[in-house]
């Protein structure tokens, strides 16, 4: 055999082996899909009305987001998906992701926080996100949904959520938010985990509600106690 033929054969072997691995992974993913997802999203990923949307063409991002944050599978399709320990381990999730993304769709989004600008991220977050997520990303309530505290998700999960818009959250595609803006946004969200608490005890960076509790319990209550100790009581 010529060198060329040998090279071709080697490349072909590697390709076949890779395909086999991939298809093994895909078929493992298909089995997991049938077990954990198909009851709502349908055997053919076409979705079932009133149960779950079609997953054809969603790509890897949403699948990874929902599975790695434990939001899927849902016990009841009417529930609001909330963050919980993932049901599938990393290998299983990757298998399901490659199975679902084999039906097409964009590649998984990602973000590089180091490439972002913190100040730009803060401004983007306050104009587009803080209305629901709270300015220091501590979460809150909006009409129809709980808005999660953003101290838990990874940079990748944040990027996936921004690009997809899970549940009631709006979707921010590349036309609304460039990759660099996304990097900045993620950088800011990661910053909020350890914000600059120059004033001391942060009391959760929530503002007036914990401040009022402290004012009454550590301020007024202690002073009332002192008044009680140094003041007299009636002998009546």
């Amino acid at each position, binding site marked *: 055999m010529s060198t060329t033929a040998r090279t071709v054969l080697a490349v072909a072997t590697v390709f076949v082996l890779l395909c086999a691995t991939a298809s093994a992974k895909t078929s493992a993913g298909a089995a997991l899909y049938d077990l954990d997802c198909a009851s709502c999203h349908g055997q053919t990923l076409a979705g079932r009305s009133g149960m779950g949307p079609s997953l054809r063409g969603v790509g890897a991002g949403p699948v990874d987001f929902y599975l790695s944050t434990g939001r899927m599978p849902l016990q009841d399709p009417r529930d609001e998906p909330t963050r919980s320990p993932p049901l599938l381990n990393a290998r299983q999730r990757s298998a399901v992701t490659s199975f679902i993304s084999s039906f097409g769709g964009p590649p998984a989004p990602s973000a590089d926080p180091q490439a972002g600008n*913190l*100040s*730009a991220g*803060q*401004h983007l977050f*306050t*104009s587009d996100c*803080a*209305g*629901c*997520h*709270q*300015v*220091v990303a*501590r*979460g*809150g*309530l*909006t009409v129809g949904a*709980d*808005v999660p505290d953003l101290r838990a998700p990874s940079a990748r999960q944040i990027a996936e959520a921004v690009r997809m818009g899970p549940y009631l959250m709006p979707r921010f595609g590349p036309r609304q938010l460039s990759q660099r803006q996304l990097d900045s946004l993620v950088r800011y969200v990661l*910053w909020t985990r350890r*914000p*600059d*608490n*120059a*004033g*001391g*005890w*942060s*009391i959760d*960076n*929530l*503002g*007036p*509600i914990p*401040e*009022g509790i*402290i*004012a*009454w319990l*550590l*301020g*007024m209550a*202690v*002073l*009332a106690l*002192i*008044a*009680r*100790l*140094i*003041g*007299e*009581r*009636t*002998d*009546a």
Partner: protein
Amino acid sequence: MSRAQRFVSWNEQRFGSAKGVRWLLRYVFPDHWSFLLGEVALYAFIVLVITGIFLALFYQPSDTHMIYHGSYTLLDGQQISEAYHSVLNLSLTVPAGLLMRQTHHWAADVFLAAIVLHVMRVFFTGAFRKPRDVNWFVGLTMLMLAIFEGFAGYSLGDDLMSGMGLAIAYSVAMSVPLIGAQLAHLLWDGSFPGGSDFLPRLEIAHALLIPAALAGLISVHLALIMRQHHSQFPGRGRKESNVVGTPMWPGYALRSIGLLLAVAGILFLLGGLVQINPIWQWGPYEPYLSTNGAQPDWYIGWLIGALRLMPNFEPTIAGHTPIPNPFWGGVAFPGVVFTILFFWPAAERRFSGDRRRHDLLDRPRDKPQRTALGAALLSWVVLIFAVGAADRVSFRLNISYAAQIHVWRVGVWVVPVVVYLLSLSAARALQRSGAHPLRGSPRVRLRRRPSGEFELVDAGSPSPEIHERSGGHGERRCERTTE
């Protein structure tokens, strides 16, 4: 002559001050710890003035925008107002600036808390009755001014939270029937977020006009107390005609100075250790920016609760909206509460038929109707206040927001009735039993005689100062009892 004598005679020859000083030093304070709550408010006010002067040296009331290039990288390159910039610098660059700002803010929160507790003490002990009804009006006026004062201060920073608070205040001003639009336009120097005169006006109100009014009213408040003398709880040796307690010197002044130091100490400790209103985290305000869970300081919380709780009631008549919805929660609700409080002394005189002068206080149980109605009013306000945080309750405890609002729209009318009935029966039960609500039944000391029989021993108390009133003519005689 000793140095002290020389000092006294120096003063006496110039000011003739000996008589007044003697009167002041012999002024008798009736003793009860709850009388100190008003003093806590007074001392918090002093801390507010001192820290406020410091802050005023650095604050810039200007909405001119600039691009920030300071030490704080989070906001580097952003458009911010000079007002926000000055508070940012005050917080992060000026030495001791953050300590002063935080102490000022904690002092405001505690100032209002102490006033509210003091008002409750005065109400539930009937200290607002003739001749102290005028001082009750002075006190309530100060409470209203203090609420405005706190809100104005919170709004000066031009940060995200203060801007959102002003947006709500603007809507409430707009909602006043007939004159609302002009009123808001006048106050804000234009439509929201206001013209360039707005922040200077707010600063003059916050740093000069309202504090001056408060200082003047505090003087009137204290002068009236000195003139009319303190009221006191009934007890051994205490009559309508005397005042039993500790004289200013050497007893009461030291205790009061101790309380001043305690108030200042706690407020500066809070200011140094616990972060409050971190405006560098909120960022600057622009009308298109917002944050979830924005809240006012606690003493405005009752109005936020009322705005949230008020059903969507906004009738339109011939294309006009005579009373926009924010009016009910933002204006009518506090208006009703303060009207009740202002008219209470007159109403009580009328309904009880008791128009006499009262220098002896009631215990809450002594007037079950007053106590029960007051408790009902208080529970009404406190519930509406608590509903202002329903979103946080929903988020933390997973109780549906809509369900909370539906329940409390009924609950704020039911709970006060229940509180009224419970307080009424509690007051009556305490009246019958004579027990102390916290300490239980009065302790009785018995002594056993050698013969075996028991006799009642009165627990003697240290001899207090007695100050005889003489018919309210201002002449007073001090004497020490020798029991």
